[in-house]
């Protein structure tokens, strides 16, 4: 299913590049929107690699530079915050412990900082609108929330300090730019992020763990032509 889509996109870029009449050189986009976890990171059951992550907020800045009509360079920096779903976590404890005792969960949020760079493919502007797809690679710092689970019978049954780790990050995204004037525009973007940070856990017999983090950014932003 993915291969035909990619082929169609490449073909359309090639054709439209030939027809391109105008090339924009450099653009800065400041955007903001929501972060939505997916895959294991969004799972809220006590399964392998479940992240118990909920939706959150993000801020970002993108730099786009078009060297030739349809191909360009892109660099981005962003910050995402996603909540740890305390209530789902608590309900899962009650379920797996067969409702034995009371469980109280306290947890913070996931915080992710990323800087990435990559390539983009762009259509020519048509009716003030242009489409872009981009693939980026980079480095991220993830702050894993402090988690503490207190059980009425056993005391603290799970505790993880707030820990952080740097890890490689990759993302795939698409943007729709609406050009208002020679200086400004509006931007709607969608991005899939993949990273795999490792964290330290002080508890014996555990040591460290990896957490696959996958999340989407859906943003709106302002375009500033440089």
């Amino acid at each position, binding site marked *: 299913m993915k291969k035909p889509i990619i082929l169609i996109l490449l073909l359309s870029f090639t054709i439209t590049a030939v027809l391109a009449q105008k090339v924009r050189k450099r653009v800065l986009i400041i955007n903001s929107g929501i972060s939505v976890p997916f*895959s294991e990171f969004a799972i809220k059951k*006590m*399964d*392998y*690699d479940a992240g118990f992550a909920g939706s959150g907020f993000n801020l970002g800045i993108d730099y786009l530079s078009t060297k030739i009509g349809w191909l360009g360079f892109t660099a981005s920096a962003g910050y995402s915050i996603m909540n740890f779903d305390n209530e789902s976590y608590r309900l*899962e*404890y009650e379920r*797996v*412990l*067969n409702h*034995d005792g009371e469980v109280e969960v306290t947890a913070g949020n996931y915080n992710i900082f990323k800087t990435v760079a990559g390539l983009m493919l762009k259509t020519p502007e048509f009716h003030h609108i242009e489409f872009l797809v981009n*693939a980026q*690679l980079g480095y991220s710092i993830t702050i894993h929330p402090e988690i503490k*689970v207190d059980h009425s*019978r*056993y*005391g*603290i*049954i*799970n*505790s*993880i300090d707030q*820990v*952080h*780790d*740097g*890890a*490689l*990050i*990759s993302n795939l995204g698409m943007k729709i730019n609406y050009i208002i004037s020679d200086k400004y525009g509006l931007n709607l973007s969608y991005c899939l992020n*993949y*990273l*795999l*940070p*490792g*964290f*330290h*856990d002080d*508890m*014996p*017999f*555990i*040591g*460290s*763990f*990896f*957490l*696959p983090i*996958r999340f989407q950014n859906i943003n709106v932003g302002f375009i500033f032509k440089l």
Partner: protein
Amino acid sequence: MNIKSTPVTLFLFTFLISCSQPRLNFDRGIIPPAPGNLTGVNSSYDDYNSMIITSTAESQFSLFFSTNKTSYGGNFDFVFYVCYPSADLINAEFSIYTYKEENILVDSVNSPFNELGPYLTYDRASWWDSGSDESDRRFFYTSDINGNPDIFCEYYTLDNYLYTPSGNPIYLSGINTLSDEGYLSIHRDEYPDREAVYFTSNRDGSFDIYRALSEENKLIDQSADVGINKVEQVCSDSDDKCPFVKDDLMVFASNRNGGFGGYDLWYSTYKDNEWSLPGNFGQDINTEYDEFRPVIMVTNPDEFLNNLMIFSSNRPGGSGRFDLYYVGVNKNLSSDN
């Protein structure tokens, strides 16, 4: 110290990488507070009267128990299993893997009569633990080979996982009477120069729990002059049986009032030189059917949040008649009274 992602990881496929160590939802294992059937050892016959003792590693234990499955419902003999408890720290699932092993020690004491109430003072030496007292190797058990249940002691040696009995079981003349005695258990360090043991007897009519004190600087099986007294704090007008002492916790079975029907499991704690009034383990563990012969294993606190108790019950849903069940009990049970 953080774990860095390896540079050779292909950037675009980081999401495809599966990791060997996920985030865990439990710091330590939890043995379920609701009883589970020890299916690996139970049969359609009676399986009860167990003894568990930590074995060569913290992650395994030895299980001795009485069963009449080998005689197809006839007399009770001991059998021996090695058990591996494991707890899933992601979803709290708990299981005990068991396998049966031949054991010369239990074979040597098994007879055409009934052998019940096993109690070992020491099990296999831990391979890393050379400082343990390996000299105290006694196997106490109850047998009606003389017509009524009496307590015996068999010394044994252990070498390369091989239990070798002395071949001369000692009849505990200081404790045994013409009444029924059984289920001896040692309470260590109750007296510095005497050995304190607890057992059950019906010498006064109903079954009660008694304490016996050895002669000074002698073990109970070496003492002819044994001081015996009924443990009034834990006894009732009904039958009180199967005391098992671990550290300062005594667990036993009783059909006294205040239970949930039949024999229930009760516990008492030793503090300030006396046993507390017994507490019932509650309806999570006890039923209207019989619960019998509880034994406790103190688990490694770095591995489990609670201790393991094994008992027998004839409740419905088992393999038939009495089955062995496991359940988690609080480590701080002693402070609950």
